[in-house]
């Protein structure tokens, strides 16, 4: 389709990882890709040109927030979110459903849609699949999400899970039908079923019958045990079309990214790198540096001597320590580094997939994260399921 072409360049010979170019109306995105989240049409105080310098090729906007402020009227008059925020590369929007259920206690889900009280004027409103797509059509992102019936991942109620999973498929049909701009925007269905094998398999198989350009894997990364998480990712990528992009929602911690790329995921999003920046934490392979700590007061090293971001080139840990969580500039500086970190990790993975060295990279990365050789069982098991048997060096 004109709205999305997915050209796989290299497949890893051992794992399910692959590198590809996803051609979208606004940009050719190299995958595997991490998509930083810019909720309100902006990314934590960074200019669009800074995001471009950081190699961001696609970023996220939140439909629920943008639909409220500035609202679809303004966005349409502006010519879409791209023009409104001055971002020429690709955009993806969520459906608004997740935000509604997680932010609003008053949300009630019926077959028609998500009913909620507006936090702005208290009026009762209904977000239907049709309305979600209508708003996303106004925003104009390259990739848009179907409205799904969201259940807390750790919910144990089988009946509710089944209902949500099946309703998500029914809502998908309504979303596809309501979609007004199919040549410019691709709707991704969301595979649901939480942690239940059968429901998730049914959901994925059902979505496979639809004429869509890519798939999202939802209902995960919601506080479930990692041992429960990865088999669901693996099950989903096992069913979904190999020739279409797969997007795992809400995942962004480095080790999770590495494992899930090995399991065949192409796209990720998470607020984690920019949120943690606000708290004064900088991402490094071994985890995070909490720069508030006194021991950084006179540490004249950059956050990461191998990082070439503008923060690491210009600033020491000691300086960041002295302004962290006090000056807005510190938040900008850490956001730059943390986004650079995510982008570099994804770039390294792509290069290793293309060079045929991805399994070796994974082994080396895991060693760096767990230098004592105490690998978590989920990391060992998930990687062994795709042919990487970790050994402590």
């Amino acid at each position: 389709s004109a709205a999305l072409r997915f050209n796989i360049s290299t497949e890893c010979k051992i794992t399910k990882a692959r590198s590809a170019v996803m051609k979208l109306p606004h940009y050719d995105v190299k995958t595997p890709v991490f998509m930083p989240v810019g909720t309100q049409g902006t990314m934590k105080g960074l200019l669009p040109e800074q995001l471009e310098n950081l190699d961001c090729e696609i970023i996220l906007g939140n439909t629920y927030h943008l639909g409220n402020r500035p609202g679809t009227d303004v966005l349409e008059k502006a010519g879409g979110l791209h023009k409104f925020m001055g971002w020429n590369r690709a955009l993806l929007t969520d459906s608004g459903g997740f935000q509604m259920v997680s932010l609003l206690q008053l949300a009630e889900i019926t077959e028609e849609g998500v009913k909620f009280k507006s936090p702005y004027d208290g009026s009762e409103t209904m977000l239907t699949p049709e309305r979600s797509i209508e708003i996303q059509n106004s925003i104009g992102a390259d990739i848009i999400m179907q409205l799904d019936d969201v259940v807390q991942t750790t919910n144990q109620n089988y009946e509710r899970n089944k209902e949500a999973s099946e309703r998500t498929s029914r809502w998908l049909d309504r979303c596809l039908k309501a979609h007004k701009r199919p040549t410019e925007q691709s709707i991704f269905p969301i595979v649901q079923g939480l942690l239940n094998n059968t429901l998730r398999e049914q959901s994925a198989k059902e979505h496979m019958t639809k004429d869509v350009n890519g798939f999202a894997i939802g209902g995960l990364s919601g506080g479930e045990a990692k041992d429960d998480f990865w088999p669901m990712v693996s099950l989903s990528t096992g069913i979904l079309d190999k020739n279409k992009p797969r997007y795992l929602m809400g995942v962004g911690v480095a080790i999770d990214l590495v494992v899930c790329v090995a399991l065949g995921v192409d796209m990720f999003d998470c607020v984690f790198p920019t949120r943690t920046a606000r708290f004064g934490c900088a991402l490094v392979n071994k985890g995070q540096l909490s720069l508030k700590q006194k021991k950084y007061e006179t540490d004249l090293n950059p956050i990461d001597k191998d990082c070439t971001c503008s923060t690491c080139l210009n600033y020491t840990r000691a300086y960041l320590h002295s302004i962290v969580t006090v000056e807005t500039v510190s938040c900008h500086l850490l956001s730059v580094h943390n986004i650079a970190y995510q982008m570099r990790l994804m770039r390294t993975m792509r290069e290793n997939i293309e060079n045929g060295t991805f399994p070796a990279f994974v082994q080396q990365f895991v060693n760096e994260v767990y230098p004592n050789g105490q690998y978590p069982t989920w990391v060992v098991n998930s990687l062994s399921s795709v042919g990487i048997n970790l050994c402590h060096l």
Partner: protein
Amino acid sequence: MRFNIKQVNCGSERIGSLTGFIKSSKTIIETPTAALLTQGGSVVHLTAEVLAKVFPDTQLLWLPLSNSVQLENGVKAQGEGVAKFAGLPKHVICATLYNINEIVPPGHFELGKLPLWTKNGKKMITADKYMDLMETFKPDIILAASDGRISLNEKPKRIVKSVERTIALLDSCINKYKASEELQQSSLVGVIVAANIPHKCEECIRHILKYKETLVGVALAGLTDGSKESYEISLDKLKEIFSRVGGSLPNDLLRIVEGSWNPAVIVTAIEYGWDVFDGSYPIKLTNKGHALSLNFDVYRYSGDPCIMDLNDIRYNEDFKPILEGCECLTCKKHTRAYIRHLLNTREMLASVLLSIHNLHHFNEFFVQARLHISASTFNIYKKHIITQYENINPKLDNEENKTAPALVQDKKKIKVRIDDNVKTEVNGTIIE
């Protein structure tokens, strides 16, 4: 550092240059000019990367100790001065005790000590300690410690006291300065107070002039304590002060004015030979969500207001740049509607975009001022600027210096941060 005067006109407005900076020997900073206000060593809201996009050349930065004293141990460990430590090695620093616009509780003096209100509360500081910090920070220009943050209309008793204190503080600063070769790499500036009581002010100036050979210039403080009321001084009154104080100074001294004065006041000061301003005005506008939009065409004034309140709903669907024809990064790419949206959603980018425009435009205001002085048309320019301020809604210009919505929210976030952080730590390993 050296100050040279290139041209003085029949008014006493003048063009000068600051040169001979130790770390950037080729830099020439032309006056009249404004510094860029810093907080924690960074230009407010701008990282080094963004600052370089706005101003590729070396800039004069205004560094109040009250918001940067926490950098001391780091600067000391690095040993190369505060500019380098704050990631801005090629820029030139003018250091002072306070940001005169920070509103703090009054009083709290102890014998020989000044209160320094920092993010971590009050610190009492002696002139010696101040100069020790300067030795560590290595700024290009040091304003001597003073009791300068009092309003013009303060009780005479308090003003007299401030002269006494300021004189004693200057003596101590001079002694420290003369005893340290390291400190003599920086240039020292004496501070004038008591502008409203002519004979006390003269006493202060006479004392400063005793050290004329040691000092590169003077700074005029004691006009405001940062409060809204203290800025309510008539232009005529300020004119009288700039004229009287300026007239009693030798020409070759650099003249600095502290305070968040608007362009109408600044052109009035420039007319009487004042050279450098502290650069807090554009930040004050930014923090209120306001954009400066002066008209520089002296032959064509449309009557448009020279300050825009971008919080206003009227800009909701206004897809024009802040100021048509403005060459700043913000105006070349972003619209009023977008900035209004960012203000409305309390996003940090609002402050960044407004800062970029306001700093660029404020700088342009000085560029134009210098051009008019060169062309001997400054009087026309001055009237043109003052007219624009006479026509604006005074509320816009003289509102209380409230913090930007984005900042207010950020402060809330810092509180939340503590609890939220626990969650983050679960996600990723915090290295001990």
